[in-house]
């Protein structure tokens, strides 16, 4: 806060159209948190309909228009809109922008000792393109017929026949993809070219590695969806039939199109992107968790190299497992054998990564700070999500489990108590660096314990629902006998979701209060960590480092033998000298 900057920049250039990676990171962060919260609100509405089908939404029911919820009772169309937009917003507007756009942008250049990103203007452009994409998505709720309602997967022919909101969805996606491409080029060049002297690839913090692999996934997988989106736009706007076979009869009328297309083409293109995309959701989270665990165990994480190689291998493999989302489309033995085998193979590096993180705890001196609590909870939660991926990955058990709540349970365990918890860990961990103030620990612990309990309350029942055979995307599961039999589980899940929403108030209050009134940090390195982001002034000035740092050692030299302090920052030349101020 102290040293004001000398170059005079107008307020707009400094905070709106800034090219400073830290400001852009904060813009991404705030926008993404708001979208996460919004996406969660959509879901809290849906959970009412699921728990009490056909009953008017209490309190706010009367606020909805007749086209969405007449008399406060949600229409199936509206339910489908909320579902599709929840998925889209959480993935493309919430988690990825927060994990990559915000943390990647803010922390990665600091950790490698760079003055900024390689292409600062491109960086700014990528945020604003993302912003436009988000605005288009939000605006789509207000077009005739409402927002997209064919699921986040937008399978044709349903999405071809859907109302105008679907076109907005495609256009919004094209913006979001463009933004990711700009970002990923920038990230890769920055990591490869802008490392400080001495920062060799194998001295990079795990978080930087995770961003590098993630960027390659975004760079190479997203174009498939770009292509698919273009084709869908052609179908919807120019009347082509890429995804429409001949002889469709819709509502008793033969559809007047040329036909000759293939609905499965979309699914292949979509999942070619969307499987790597799920690793985009998890890798930065793993990176954050690795940083937090290393800092708070006061020892190096176990198996740095095996972590790095596993992440790279995971990246490669993620391009050849996509059709495990499509087992039920009628694929033959050869195809299904190939994809079940690759899916089993890809689970091994995940097991290696998770195991390495768990055994990193052994031998530490573990500090139970708030970020550490979230990082620790991440491990078993991701474990549940990952393990339940195995029955889905084998084609035969997937016959029963495909498109049931079991799948919903599986991936929410990896993204919600998994990735979202890791992101919370990141917020608590880097908040003092970014703002110069600490967040309140008591509120943080309250936030943690309530979130942990309720988030399990939301998602654990889904496995039993799925086992019982309840399909996903059902407006009213009591329509089926096997659904009605487990309706109690749905109610538990819904009540937990609302309580989870309440629990977030601890975070929101803490977050905003601490920005203005949190206790100031005394030291640039309050957690006594080793990586370079802590070697800058707090908050870091434009250009980051007063003098370009030189790196002398690996990223996690904690509790090294013969060294007095229990940590040796990367830019300290002689470890025997008193490392850090402590």
């Amino acid at each position, binding site marked *: 806060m102290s040293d004001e900057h000398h170059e005079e920049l107008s307020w707009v250039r400094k905070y709106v159209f800034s090219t400073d990676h830290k400001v852009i990171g904060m813009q991404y962060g705030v926008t993404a948190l708001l979208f996460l919260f919004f996406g969660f609100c959509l879901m809290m509405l849906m959970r009412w309909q699921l728990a009490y089908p056909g009953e008017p939404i209490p309190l706010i029911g009367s606020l909805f228009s007749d086209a969405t919820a007449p008399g406060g009772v949600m229409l199936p169309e509206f339910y489908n809109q909320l579902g599709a937009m929840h998925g889209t917003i959480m993935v493309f507007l919430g988690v990825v922008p927060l994990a990559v756009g915000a943390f990647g942008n803010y922390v990665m250049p600091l950790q490698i000792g760079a003055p900024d990103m390689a292409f600062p203007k491109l960086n700014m452009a990528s945020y604003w393109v993302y912003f436009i994409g988000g605005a288009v998505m939000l605006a789509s709720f207000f077009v005739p017929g409402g927002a997209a309602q064919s699921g986040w997967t937008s399978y044709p022919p349903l999405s071809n026949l859907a109302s105008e909101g679907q076109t907005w969805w495609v256009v919004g996606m094209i913006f979001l993809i463009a933004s990711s491409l700009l970002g990923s080029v920038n990230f890769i060049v920055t990591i490869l070219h802008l490392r400080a002297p001495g920062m060799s690839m194998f001295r990079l913090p795990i978080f930087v590695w995770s961003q590098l692999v993630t960027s390659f996934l975004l760079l190479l997988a997203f*174009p498939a969806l770009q292509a698919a989106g273009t084709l869908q736009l052609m179908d919807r706007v120019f009347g082509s039939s890429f995804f429409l076979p001949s002889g469709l009869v819709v509502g008793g009328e033969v559809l007047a199109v*040329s036909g000759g297309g293939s609905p499965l083409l979309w699914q292949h293109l979509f999942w070619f992107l969307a499987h790597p995309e799920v690793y985009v959701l998890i890798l930065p989270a793993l990176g954050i968790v690795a940083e937090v665990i290393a800092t708070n165990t006061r020892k190096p994480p176990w198996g740095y190299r095996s972590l790095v190689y596993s992440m790279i291998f995971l990246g490669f493999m993620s391009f050849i497992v996509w059709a495990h989302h499509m087992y039920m489309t009628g694929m033959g033995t050869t195809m299904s054998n190939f994809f079940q085998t690759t899916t089993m193979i890809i689970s091994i590096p995940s097991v290696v990564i998770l195991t390495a993180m768990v055994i990193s705890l052994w031998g530490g001196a573990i500090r139970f700070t708030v970020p550490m609590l979230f990082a620790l909870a991440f491990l078993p939660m991701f474990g549940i999500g990952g393990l339940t991926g195995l029955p889905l990955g084998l084609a035969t058990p997937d016959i029963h489990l495909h498109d049931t709540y079991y799948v919903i349970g599986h991936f929410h365990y990896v993204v919600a108590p998994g990735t979202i918890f890791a992101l919370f860990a990141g917020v608590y961990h880097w908040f003092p660096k970014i703002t110069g103030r600490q967040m309140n620990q008591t509120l943080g612990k309250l936030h943690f314990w309530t979130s942990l309990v309720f988030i399990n309350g939301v998602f654990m029942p889904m496995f039993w629902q799925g086992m019982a055979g309840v399909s996903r995307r059902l407006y009213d599961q009591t329509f089926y006998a096997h659904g009605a039999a487990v309706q109690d589980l749905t109610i538990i899940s819904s009540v937990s979701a609302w309580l989870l929403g309440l629990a977030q108030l601890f975070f929101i209050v803490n977050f905003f209060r601490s920005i203005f009134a949190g206790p100031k940090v005394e030291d640039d390195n309050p957690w006594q960590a080793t990586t370079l982001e802590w070697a800058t002034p707090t908050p870091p000035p434009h250009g980051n480092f007063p003098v370009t740092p030189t790196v002398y050692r690996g990223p996690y030299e904690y509790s090294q033998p013969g060294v007095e302090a229990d940590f040796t920052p990367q830019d300290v030349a002689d470890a025997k000298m008193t490392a850090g101020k402590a």
Partner: protein
Amino acid sequence: MEIPHVVEVHPETGLANAKLGLWLFLASEVMLFGALFSSYILLRVAAVEWPAGSTILNVPMATFNTLVLIASSVTVVMSWASLKMNDFAKYKVYMGITIACAFIFLIVKYFEYTAKFDHGLSPASSTFLAIYFTITGLHAIHILGGIVVNGYLLGPGARMWKTDPEQFTGRVEAAGLYWHFVDLVWIFLFPVLYLL
């Protein structure tokens, strides 16, 4: 604040920032067009009937366009070489020709498209025409992008030659790489859509 490796190459990759960035961008473009070509193959294999491109499309026009693009690929290299030889006037000439070629390409394409529309042929007519319009349309947008970039380097962007010739030459080189890629895509497109 100085960003490293804007001009001088990085010892490990042997590239400057812009060039590495461009290669990465092209990798992603390869995936984009690769996805579209794969879609083409998938649709064609699954189709009950598929017309020979030459029966619907105008092969002579496209052949002419192929030659125009190949010529422009040569001139864009010449423009960069001129800068290397410190001949700014020649650079302007070659870059000008490159841009002119791009315009010729688009004009010919415009006539091709309108001829189709006049015959009532559109993306809605058949899957073949749909993929034809999509891929060539996307390619035309890339040509437009090339015109914008090259136009900038010929016009306002050329001022940099005075202040920072090395970085300017680097930019022209990167733009040239992009232009080669756009040509290369066409060289794939032409036989696949028009001849096979």
